[in-house]
C-alpha cells in the first residue's frame, strides 16, 4: 500500500457552519503529512474524521485501506491519536495510564505492564512512573500522551499540535521522537501552528483554509509555487530606503515590504533575470548597498501569501463548534 491515508471530498457541517468543504488529503506510507491552516480552517475536524471520532457528511476516507465510517473498528486498530483533545487521565499515575490502554487493547496484565515500562523508559518518564499525571509538567504530559498513543503499535499516528505550549527544548525532544517513529515505518499526520515545525518534519504539506485545500505539495514545491524567491536589499544609508523601494517596485511589479528596524526592503522575485537590472538602477540612483541577497521564500511567507493571515490555529474552536451545533 503506497498511501496510508487517502481522503477525498470530505465535507462536514456543524449547523449552518461548513467546517470542511471538500477536502482531499493523502499521506504516503512511512512519511509525515503536515496539515497547516489558520484559525477555524478545518484541520482539527479533518483529523477527528480520520480518527473515527466524527462522521463526515460527504466524501470518503480510507486509513490503511479501511473505510473510516464502515470499517471504523479496523481503523481504530491501526491508529494512534495524540494531541489537544485525546488526553491522558489526570487522576491516574503515568504507568497506570499506559497499562489501562494496553489492557483495553486486549494485552495480558504482564505484557501490558512490560509495554508500559518500555514506553516510559523510551520517553524518559521512568522516574515519574508512579506519580499522578496531574503533577506532571507540560512537557512530561505531552510525552506520556505520545507514549499512550503508541501502546498498540499504530501504523498511522495523528499528532494534533504536539508541541503547542512547549518550551524549545521539549519541542526539540518531541521532534526527535517523531523522526524516530517515522524511521520505524510509522505514517504521521501532523497538524501544527508552527511553520518551521512543518518545514522540519513534513515530507508533504497540505494547506487548508475555510474548509478547502488551497495548496498541497512538498515544502520546496510550495515555496517555489508561491513567490519562489525573495530579494532582500539594505542600503548603507537608511535615508536611501525610499529610492530602493522605488527601484524594486518598478522592476518587479510587486509591492515591496519594508522592515523599519533594519531598513531592509524585501520583495518577491519571480524571475532572477531582473537582478542585474536592479543593481544597475540602484547604482544609477546613487545607492550604496549594505546587503543584497536572494533566498528561497520561507514557509511562513508562503503561508501568508496563500491565506493572507498568520494567525495560529485554535483547536478548542472546533469542539465549541461541534457542541454549539447540537
Amino acid at each position, binding site marked *: 500500500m503506497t498511501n496510508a491515508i487517502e481522503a477525498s471530498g470530505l465535507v462536514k457541517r456543524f449547523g449552518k457552519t461548513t467546517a470542511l468543504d471538500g477536502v482531499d488529503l493523502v499521506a504516503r506510507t512511512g512519511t509525515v503529512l503536515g496539515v497547516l491552516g489558520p484559525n477555524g480552517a478545518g484541520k482539527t475536524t479533518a483529523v477527528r474524521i480520520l480518527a*473515527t*471520532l466524527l462522521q463526515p457528511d460527504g466524501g470518503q476516507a480510507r486509513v490503511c485501506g479501511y473505510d473510516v465510517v464502515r470499517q471504523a473498528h479496523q481503523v481504530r486498530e491501526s491508529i494512534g*491519536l495524540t494531541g489537544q483533545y*485525546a488526553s491522558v*487521565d489526570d487522576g491516574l499515575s503515568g504507568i497506570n495510564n499506559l497499562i489501562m490502554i494496553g*489492557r483495553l487493547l486486549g*494485552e495480558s496484565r504482564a505484557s501490558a505492564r512490560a509495554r508500559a515500562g518500555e514506553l516510559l523508559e523510551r520517553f524518559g518518564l521512568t522516574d515519574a512512573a508512579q506519580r499522578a499525571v496531574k503533577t506532571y509538567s507540560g512537557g512530561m504530559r505531552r510525552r506520556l500522551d505520545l507514549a499512550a498513543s503508541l501502546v498498540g*503499535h499504530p501504523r498511522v499516528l495523528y499528532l494534533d499540535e504536539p508541541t503547542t505550549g512547549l518550551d524549545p527544548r521539549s519541542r526539540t525532544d518531541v521532534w526527535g521522537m517523531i523522526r524516530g517513529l517515522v524511521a520505524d515505518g510509522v505514517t504521521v499526520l501532523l497538524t501544527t501552528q508552527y511553520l518551521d515545525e512543518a518545514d522540519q518534519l513534513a515530507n508533504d504539506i497540505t494547506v487548508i483554509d475555510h474548509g478547502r485545500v488551497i495548496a498541497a505539495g512538498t515544502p520546496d514545491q510550495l515555496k517555489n509555487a508561491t513567490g519562489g524567491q525573495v530579494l532582500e536589499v539594505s542600503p548603507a544609508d537608511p535615508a536611501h530606503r525610499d529610492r530602493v523601494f522605488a527601484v524594486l517596485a518598478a522592476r518587479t511589479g510587486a509591492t515591496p515590504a519594508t522592515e523599519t528596524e533594519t531598513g531592509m526592503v524585501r520583495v518577491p522575485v519571480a524571475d532572477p533575470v531582473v537582478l542585474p537590472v536592479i543593481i544597475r538602477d540602484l547604482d544609477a540612483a546613487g545607492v550604496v548597498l549594505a546587503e543584497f541577497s536572494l533566498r528561497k521564500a520561507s514557509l511562513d511567507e508562503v503561508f501568508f501569501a496563500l491565506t493572507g493571515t498568520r494567525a495560529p490555529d485554535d483547536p478548542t474552536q472546533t469542539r465549541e463548534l461541534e457542541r454549539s451545533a447540537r
Partner: protein
Amino acid sequence: MTTATLPAPARPRRLAPVTGLRNTFTLTWRSVLKIRTNMEDLVGLSLQPIMFLLLFTYVFGGAISGSTHAYLQLALPGLLVMTVVFATMGTGLMLNQDITGGVFDRFRSLPIARWAPLAGAVLGDMVRYLISVAVTLGFGMILGFRVSTGVLPALAATALLLTFALAMCWVSALIGMLVKSPQGVQMYGFLAMFPLVFGSNLLVPSGTMPGWLQAFVRVNPMTYLTSAERGLLTGGGVATPAIRALLWALGIFVVFAPLAVRAYRRRT
C-alpha cells in the same frame, strides 16, 4: 525494564460481547484506582456523611425527637439515603470531566466497545457508594445508632441502597452528558436532588407538613427508600416500601439509562 519490542497482539476483527465486558472491567479498575489517588474525592466521600450526621443529629435531634439518641434512630436510615443519592452526583461530574478533558476521545479512538467507558464509570462508582454507606453506618454506630434487626437485614439494607444508587446515577450521568462544564453538573445536580431528598420523610416525620407537600412526600421515591431502610435497620414494615422503592429504581433506570446512553453517543 526490558527494552525489547513486544509483538503486536493479534486482535479480533469484530468485538465479541466478552471483549466489551473485559473493556468494562478494565475501565472499572480505572475508576476505582482514581478514588485512591484523588484525595479530595475520598475526603468528600467520608467527611461529608460525618458532617451530615453530626449536624443533623445534634442540631435537629432534640427539637424533633426530644433526644439526640431517639432522633439518630429515626434519621440515620434517612441520612444513608441522602448520602448515597448525593454521591451519585459524582458519576455525572466525572463523566463530564472525562468528556471535556478529552479522555473519552482517547477511548473512542481505541478498538473497544463503545459502551464500555460508560459502563465502567458506573460500575466503578458502586465502590464509591459502598464507601459512603460504610462511613455513614459506621460513624452512626459510633454516635449511638443501634441496628435492632440483625446482620442479614443490614446487608439487605445496603444492597437496596446500592440498587437504588445504580438507578439514580443514570440521572446524574444524563446531566453530566448534557451540561457543558463540571461546575454546571454540580449546580443542576443539586437542583434536581435537593427537592427529592428534603421533600421526603428522610429527616423528619411528614405529619406537620402542609397537605400539598405531604402529597409530594407520598409519591417521592426517597420516602419509600427511607421507610424500607428504617424497616430493615430498626424494625417495622419492609415489604411494601421496599417493593415500591425497587419499582421506582426500575422506572428511573428504564427512563434515564437509555437517555444517558443516547446523550453519550451524541456527545462523544
